[in-house]
């Protein structure tokens, strides 16, 4: 079955990633690097310094009076801009905060001036009177009976309930020898791409709207902008330059839309230059509290799992439904459970609106489930790997036969498992080398431990189609256009590989465009690790159609039956006679051939899982060293495995696994937006701790299985989100093994370790 591409000393020799040269020479142009269009002026937002406050008054007169200021948009003149504010999703943030500010960084006003310095200064001249209200920083607090209501018109802070179940948990608990209760929580964290979020250029021209911005979802953003300004979508042209990371956070921001409103008056291009601090107010991950009851038999079979999820979606519901639903359909981990139930309550808080975040809803639930498995193992005195083997889904297993989704009983329409998790798990464990000698780096008492974690994600198709176009120019080069923004994953490289392999031309003959919504090619956006499968299939289809046209043209112009022709090595062949593409299209009267294609795979639709593309397992094993005196945790070894179906570009696949793992170490050990003492305490690079090279285990091994059974081009599967969820549980379980005590939340700080050890008097 699956062939493993083992981590080798020297990587499999791929062609260099297509954007290598521009990225190592500093010539890759990110939006801030683009030369200012002639007449560019600058916009700066005024953001709320408070998490929750009533806006008593806002007075921009001193700002307007400042020489060089061209315009101010605030709640007092908002009505003059005749914007279709109702066109914004009612659960998304309003364009401006008008009655209350609901999170730190909520947008109060946008100032446009001739230069950035003046605009920033003008913002400091806007006088606002706030009546500070008590902030709500946890879902629990906002669901308390006496809690202030964030959105008065909704009358409640409880915004969304979801549930998912099969079997009968009560029956399950009746059969159980032991029932364990656990509470495990995952905090709000920030995506923190290195390129600040919110930098962009917007311009209202006579021909429509032009936007240059890093966006994960260009088509959706352009359509949204069109709705707000009441113009046709094709009159909004959004171009995506090189993007400095996203992880779910990059989009056309409300600040950009505010600037557009001013550009409509000024008819000038307006540039926004976001700071790292402002970025913390754009997007974060949902904080989730996972409360569970687990029924087990003495021999280690899990007979029932009953979960209650408390999801904190921040001040608005942006992306909340997906996160909560993903959390629900992931809350069972990857185990064969006869009886399962999850009920989720999502609530507003005075925090940055939560959005999709790499592995939305999964990083939190996988952490919880996998920690609970180890807790059960320790309680029953069974080896955690063995306990997993006794309960894990095996190839051919179905999750369930019928289930209840949001109260509705429906048949299970997702396929049986087609990946071999136990084998992957064993390989992950075997790949851990012998324990390195305890080096005296700490000089103190240390304990070592190993832990494993499993995750089972799935690829799911976006609600919109995935389209691409392939065009053959008279010079014989092929250009692929699409709207799948490369946030850094190597999407354009993947597209180039699929195109060249499909067409039988060299990669150097293929040019991959960057997203430009004027091409009107649909794509839901790079998320749910759908891009390789869906966009890959779309590119494959477009190129197949182009190939057909080419061969027909060849048969037409050079005679013979289309079946006599083939496309290989970048040339058209009939028998042993070959023609350059350029030669042929040139002869065709200088025609350029253009073909479009879409992902036409038919995916089963399931009430819970939506359009189901494929199973995507992730497996990891970690070894850590714990300093028993200080609680410091030092990762020693980490192995991570996934099944890529077919590897299209080894370095990119490995980069996704390693990159997800590195981000996972951040979630495991460091990352948390600390809302304390009435405000967000660490919204700056100094106090929000990202994982650094020094934090990484010196040995990180990856193995990529190639089962060849993926639904994507040439059998590919998505892997982008398989490695991030496993790190926190693998590390927590390794710590549990080392110190004999469980950890209940991330980030796993040294203090939490000391408390687990009982070295500090309890608190919190």
């Amino acid at each position, binding site marked *: 079955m699956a062939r493993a591409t083992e981590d080798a000393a020297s990587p499999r020799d791929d062609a260099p990633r297509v954007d290598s040269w521009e990225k190592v020479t500093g010539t890759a142009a990110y939006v801030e690097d683009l030369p200012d269009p002639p007449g560019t002026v600058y916009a700066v937002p005024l953001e709320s*310094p408070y998490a929750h406050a009533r806006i008593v008054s806002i007075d921009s007169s001193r700002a307007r009076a400042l020489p060089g200021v061209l315009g101010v948009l605030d709640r007092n003149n908002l009505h003059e801009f005749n914007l279709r504010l109702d066109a914004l999703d009612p659960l998304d943030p309003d364009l401006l905060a008008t009655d209350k500010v609901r999170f730190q960084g909520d947008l109060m006003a946008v100032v446009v001036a001739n230069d950035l310095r003046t605009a920033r200064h003008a913002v400091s001249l806007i006088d606002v009177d706030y009546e500070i209200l008590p902030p709500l920083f946890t879902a629990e607090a906002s669901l308390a009976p006496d809690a202030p209501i964030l959105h008065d018109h909704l009358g409640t802070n409880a915004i969304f309930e979801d549930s998912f179940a099969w079997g009968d948990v009560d029956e399950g608990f009746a059969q159980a020898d032991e029932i364990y209760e656990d509470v495990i929580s995952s905090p709000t964290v920030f995506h923190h791409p290195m390129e600040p979020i919110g930098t962009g250029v917007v311009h209202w021209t006579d021909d429509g709207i032009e936007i240059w911005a890093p966006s994960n979802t260009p088509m959706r953003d352009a359509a949204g902008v069109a709705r707000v300004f009441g113009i046709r979508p094709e009159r909004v042209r959004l171009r995506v330059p090189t993007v400095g990371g996203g992880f779910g956070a990059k989009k056309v921001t409300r600040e950009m839309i505010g600037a557009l409103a001013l550009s409509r008056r000024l008819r000038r291009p307006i540039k926004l230059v976001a700071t790292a601090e402002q970025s913390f107010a754009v997007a974060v991950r949902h904080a989730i509290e996972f409360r569970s009851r687990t029924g087990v038999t003495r021999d280690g079979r899990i007979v029932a799992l009953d979960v209650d999820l408390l999801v904190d979606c921040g001040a608005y519901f942006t992306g909340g439904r997906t996160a909560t639903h993903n959390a629900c359909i992931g809350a069972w981990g990857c185990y064969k459970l006869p009886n399962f139930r999850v009920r989720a309550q999502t609530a507003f808080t005075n925090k940055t609106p939560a959005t999709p975040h790499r592995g939305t809803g999964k990083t939190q639930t996988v952490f919880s489930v996998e920690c609970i498995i180890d807790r059960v193992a320790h309680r029953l005195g069974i080896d955690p790997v063995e306990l997993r083997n006794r309960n894990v889904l095996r190839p051919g297993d179905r999750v369930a036969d019928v289930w209840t989704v949001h109260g509705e009983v429906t048949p299970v329409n997702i396929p049986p498992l087609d990946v071999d998790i136990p084998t992957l798990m064993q390989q992950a464990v075997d790949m851990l080398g012998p324990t390195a000698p305890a080096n005296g780096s700490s000089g103190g008492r240390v304990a070592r431990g190993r832990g494993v974690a499993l995750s089972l994600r799935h690829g799911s198709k976006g609600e919109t189609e995935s389209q691409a176009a392939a065009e053959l120019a008279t010079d014989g080069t092929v250009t692929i256009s699409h709207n799948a923004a490369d946030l850094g994953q190597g999407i354009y490289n993947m597209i180039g590989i699929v195109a060249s392999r499909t067409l039988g031309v060299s990669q150097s003959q293929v040019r991959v465009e960057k997203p430009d919504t004027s091409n009107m090619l649909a794509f839901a956006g790079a998320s749910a690790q759908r891009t390789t499968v869906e966009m890959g299939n779309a590119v494959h289809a477009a190129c197949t159609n182009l190939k057909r046209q080419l061969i027909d043209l060849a048969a037409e112009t050079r005679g013979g039956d289309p079946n006599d022709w083939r496309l290989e090595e970048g040339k058209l062949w009939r028998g042993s006679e070959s023609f350059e593409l350029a030669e042929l299209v040139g002869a065709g009267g200088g025609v350029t051939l253009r073909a479009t294609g879409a992902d036409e795979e038919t995916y089963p639709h399931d009430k819970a899982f939506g359009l189901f593309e494929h199973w995507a397992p992730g497996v990891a094993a970690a070894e850590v060293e714990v300093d028993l005196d200080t609680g410091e945790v030092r990762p020693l070894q980490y192995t991570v495995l996934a099944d890529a179906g077919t590897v299209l570009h080894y370095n990119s696949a490995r980069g996704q696994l390693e990159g997800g793992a590195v981000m996972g170490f951040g979630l495991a050990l460091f990352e948390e937006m600390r809302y304390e003492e009435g405000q967000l305490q660490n*919204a700056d690079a100094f106090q929000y701790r990202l994982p650094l090279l020094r934090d990484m285990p010196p040995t990180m091994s990856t193995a990529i299985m190639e089962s060849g059974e993926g639904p994507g081009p040439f059998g590919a599967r998505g892997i982008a989100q398989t490695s991030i969820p496993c790190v926190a549980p693998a590390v927590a379980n390794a710590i549990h093994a080392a110190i004999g005590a469980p950890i209940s939340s991330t980030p796993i700080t040294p203090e939490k370790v000391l408390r687990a050890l009982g070295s500090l008097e309890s608190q919190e």
Partner: protein
Amino acid sequence: MHVDEHVTVPLALGDAWDFVWQVDLLAGCVPGCTGVKMIEQGKHYTGRVADRVGPYRVEMDLDVTVQESTAPEMIRVLVSGQDRKMGTTQRMDLTVRLVELGPAQTRLDIGAEVEILGKIAALGQFVVKRKVTDVIKKFGENLRLACTEVKRVG
């Protein structure tokens, strides 16, 4: 955050009460507070405070409002101010309870619920919390000195 401080002053309960009940005198004991004006007797006062938190200079107009009082035992005032330029807001819910220790000795139990919001967070919680603790300590000390002064001249 909550800070408690206790000082003993050489005044009889009644005299001590007379002092704290003159809210302008009480507010005057807030470190760095100057120019306290009475807006409405026993209810509303204003002043200005200038102070440093490390290298960071805070200047704000203070608004002092009496929330509740029970002569001669307890007074609760809300001291709030905003430094617009630095984008910093301070709110202190200050309670002073008077406990008679002897004919000329009264203990003042100071309880302050303090909230400092804004850009100052960039200095780190550590700095802000420590500063608040120091401010309340100093407030207690000022109160003690002022009362001793009253005793001397009185």
